[in-house]
């Protein structure tokens, strides 16, 4: 087994990066959190400090331990400071060119043994790793939002990923008290692929015009014991986010008809009906910000 990791590097201080940093700090790791934009770094730091404070309020962490945890956090706007880190998780936006650029730079700074993980939900690991000199040390590490709450991590090995790198990624996920599963580098991995039909088939039923979306949600909760029906869940995720994920899977499978997105959602995106965050999606959310 490889040595346990002392310092975890996290590139990108957005929702996911800050969430992973929070979990890692509370699990006793040192974290070096990077964002190229100083203000994003400040926001990320205060976001994770709020998360740690919430954990204290709920009695999940002792106040002194929380303080120690925050003491293990360092932040930087200079990627070169990742030099001494043994494991880096990249959490920049889902843009292949951007991710490739981050990895090319990281490869220049870090030791060849450093594992470079990418937190992507929709890009192929293989494509992110391909231009590198050592693509075998790149693995996917797909966390779910909110990171502090969701226990799953999909660990993705591409065709060139070294099995030892995948194993080390599994070990890190367990170290973060998450439950890792192994997935091949296939569009949507497991969750975003299999769950497509929960949404798509509901849209097909709605499209037939014989039953209202609220009734479908009610049946799915009552008959299937799901916590949320497909339409309320899409509103929560954000219709635009959901559409983007659906398109990625459809395109990734070269337009396999099973994954064909429904035009209904595209119209909603164009109309600005994005779900809870805009105050209206399939349902209306009075009091939510409208715009």
């Amino acid at each position, binding site marked *: 087994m490889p040595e346990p990791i002392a310092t975890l590097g996290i590139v990108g201080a957005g929702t996911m990066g800050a969430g992973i940093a929070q979990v890692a700090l509370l699990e006793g790791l040192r974290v070096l959190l990077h964002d190229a934009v100083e203000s994003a770094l400040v926001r990320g730091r205060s976001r994770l400090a709020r998360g740690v404070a919430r954990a204290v309020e709920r009695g999940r962490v002792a106040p002194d331990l929380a303080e120690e945890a925050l003491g293990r956090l360092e932040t930087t706007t200079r990627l070169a400071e990742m030099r001494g880190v043994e494991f880096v998780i990249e959490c920049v936006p889902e843009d292949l060119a951007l991710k490739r650029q981050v990895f090319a730079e990281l490869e220049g700074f870090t030791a060849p043994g450093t594992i470079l993980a990418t937190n992507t939900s929709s890009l192929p690991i293989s494509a992110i790793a391909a231009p590198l000199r050592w693509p075998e040390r790149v693995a996917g590490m797909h966390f779910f939002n909110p990171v502090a709450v969701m226990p799953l991590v999909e660990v993705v090995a591409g065709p060139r990923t070294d099995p030892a790198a995948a194993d080390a990624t599994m070990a890190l996920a367990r170290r973060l008290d998450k439950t890792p599963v*192994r997935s091949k580098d296939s569009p949507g991995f*497991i969750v975003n692929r*299999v769950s497509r039909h929960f949404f798509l088939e509901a849209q097909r039923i709605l499209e037939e015009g014989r039953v209202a979306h609220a009734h479908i949600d009610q049946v799915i909760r009552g008959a299937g014991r799901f916590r949320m029906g497909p339409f309320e869940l899409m509103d929560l995720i954000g219709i635009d986010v959901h559409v983007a994920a659906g398109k990625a899977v459809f395109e990734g499978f070269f337009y396999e008809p099973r994954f064909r997105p429904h035009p209904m959602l595209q119209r909603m995106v164009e109309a600005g009906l994005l779900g809870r965050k805009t105050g209206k999606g399939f349902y209306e959310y009075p009091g939510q910000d409208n715009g």
Partner: protein
Amino acid sequence: MAEGHTQRKARRILVLGQSPLADALSDLAGAAGLAVHRPPALPESRDELDAIFTDQTRREQYLRHLGDAYREAEVVIEAEASEWMDPELPDTTLVLTAALGHSTAEAADDIHARHRVVGFGVLPPLEAGQMVELAAGPWTEPAALDQAAAFFRELGLETAAVPDGPGLIFPRILCMVINEAAFALMEGVASAADIDTAMKLGTNYPLGPLEWADRIGLDQVLAVLEALQVEYGEDKYRPAPLLRRLVRAGHLGRASGRGFHVYDSGEPPA
């Protein structure tokens, strides 16, 4: 309940089918104090059943084999994807057909008292308060729908009216999810255990799709997908070849000791 109160004979229901759903509904009905009758064996196929029903001698033999329960049953439940109903059922009987491998309309079409036929959809494992979907066929009388709702309430289940079609709402959606999980497993994207874990922990499914399929019966899942494929004529409903292969091999899930997962043989699955 009080001593001296007229001892009423328990009302009879007949449950047709050998699926886990048939077992689960029989258990609930038994617990609710109904006299549940289940014919020990059914013909191999609908074709064979049709042959029996078109031959008067064989028909009488078959109905004798089902016993008096058939004529006396207040409710006859076809609790699996296949059709087993006698076309000549008396029109006092309430006929509940699982709208899985067919719509309510298709099941009712063969039956003389087709106004008495109500489609239902629910999948095991069943628990108290779970919702059963009820669908009227084109000829169903409102009284039959009301009776169906009252019957399921007596079993401790809730009901919701939904439009007719193969798989209604929840079984249709879940079977499509299961089919995708079967494709992913077949393609080696992940192990069966990891697929189930991922869906439970990554998106809060109450059960993993593959273990769920093992509880429902893989033949039942396949029947829903095949019926959808026929109904819509679309490739998207194409069943995963792995699902077909498992059904063909008799690996139907927990009840047969093996489905997507392997269960300890010998002891009944918990």
